[in-house]
């Protein structure tokens, strides 16, 4: 390893006196203070600040409209425009889920059902939102385009039970998603 010899930079008299730099520093901090009080801090517009610094103050202001397209919120189940629940209980998401937040109990689709050839659907589909890490692997792995991370970020509850999203709740948040590949439709 080559040895590089460095000497400390030579300071001139003004730098050694230190007071000039101190006053410069005061000017810098005070400029920031005044700008932040007037709501004109650098970047406050892009960050939609509340008028104090660059901070958006949460319960009054929401960042919903500033949310990026790729935002990963709560994972949900979706139905398609034909009203079919898209999950076929393959349990890939359950196996891929890194924190093991998903629990699926599959069931057969009865033979008199319109979608009997799909064979399976979930009887229970629970996502424990305390465990969920919003990684999006379930969405990525799903072969049926059934599970999606929506933009909901306010997942709260007053007990552990409330934090487990069951099938009903998941479909409620997920809603209907149109324009998906409908591979179970009859060929025309």
């Amino acid at each position, binding site marked *: 390893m080559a040895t590089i010899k460095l000497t400390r930079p030579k300071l001139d008299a003004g730098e050694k006196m230190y007071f000039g730099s101190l006053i410069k520093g005061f000017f810098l901090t005070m400029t920031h*203070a005044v700008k932040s009080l007037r709501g004109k801090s650098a970047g406050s517009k892009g960050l939609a600040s509340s008028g104090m610094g660059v901070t958006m103050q949460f319960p009054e202001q929401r960042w919903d409209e500033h949310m990026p397209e790729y935002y990963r919120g709560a994972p949900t189940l979706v139905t398609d425009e034909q009203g079919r629940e898209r999950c076929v209980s393959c349990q890939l998401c359950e196996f891929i889920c890194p924190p093991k937040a998903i629990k699926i109990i599959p069931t057969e689709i009865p033979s008199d059902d319109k979608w009997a050839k799909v064979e399976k659907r979930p009887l229970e589909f629970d996502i424990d939102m305390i465990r969920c890490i919003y990684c999006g692997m379930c969405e990525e792995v799903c072969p049926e385009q059934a599970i999606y991370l929506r933009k909901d970020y306010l997942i709260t509850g007053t007990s552990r039970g409330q934090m487990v999203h069951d099938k009903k709740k998941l479909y409620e948040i997920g809603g209907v998603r149109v324009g998906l590949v409908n591979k179970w439709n009859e060929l025309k």
Partner: protein
Amino acid sequence: MPELLISLAIIVVKIVAFTFLVVLPLVPISVYFERRFSAIIQDRVGPNRVGLPLTLFGAKKDFHLFGLFQPMADGLKLFLKEDFTPDHVNKAFYWLAPALTVVPALITVCVVPFGPDVTLFGHTEKLVIADIDVGPLFIFAISSLTVYGITLAGWSSNSKFPFIGGVRSTAQMISYEICLGLSVIPVILYYGDLNLNNIVQEQATNGWLLLPFWTNNELSLPSLQTTLFLIPAFIAFIIFTVSIFAETNRMPFDLPECETELVGGYHTEYSSMKFAMFFMGEYAAMVIGSALIITLFLGGWSFGFGLDEAIANFSIGDFQIGGFIHVGIFLGKLLTFILFFILVRWTVPRFRYDQLMKLGWVIFFEAALINVFLAALIIAAPELTAVITTVGLILLAVVTAAVIWVAKVSEPPAKILRA
């Protein structure tokens, strides 16, 4: 007998009013200012929510009051936390140390003049708890006891980081006490008085030490001697202020605490109210330090510009209560100075330990000593012949040059770093 009782009652009222209703509330207020001011410096908002929770009592709206109640909530939290005493500490000193930091800081309140005399019910009273003739000396004597609290806390915690913090604080505070004491000598020479109340009264009539633009309550230009004395006064002001920063362990010199190196420094092992006592002691010391700087250099309670007599004589009926206006002026100045303390904390980067010691012993100690002689020369000049004055000036210049030369020579050569 009744007179004795009345004077005792007055003393108790003064102690309670000034210590517990003026200085102690300033501690949470300065904590609040610290958090809000640092926030706006860093483009943030800071605590702005905690106020009166009226919705708890059925009202429609909460009053947030800009978060002014945040320090109260913090204090309440500290009260309710578990007061944990680790097994390995020396219990007696561990329990004694927090009290030893907070009590000296509060005792020094008693010589700070909050305002001029007030007359209530035909009785004239000074707005200072103890009007003693050794004000600054008393403050130095008592406030230097604070170092025992910190050292004992560091030692009795029986754990390495607090110990290092305690050792550092001992060295730091003892070093800077010398600069503190020496830098204030020119001021005392100038006034020829050690009574803080008289010093402030003198400044109110004849101009502040750093702003001498009025004499006998009338605006006028300062005399040549006063103008010349501005030089040592300003040097003394800078040394004194910086030393106060070091004495109160504030940011550029917060080596006893230094979160970055020593976890929490001397109070690492403390929790709950014992920790809060250290916290309070630190802020109370800051309040008293600012009060002392204002009193000595910036006119204390005086408003300045020759208006003080008019304000002090303001009275309603028999009650001459202009003094209370002066208390307000004093508190205003105090808050401004506390804001300056906070600004410094969030602007100036920390000093390294050797830089701190060098600043104290090599620069400030010598500068303060030379400053004493410069001030003495300026004060004595009218009574000396021109020859002696010149000789004195030359001697002073030679000594200054010699000190600078010694400091320069003794500086170790620039080290070669390896990267």
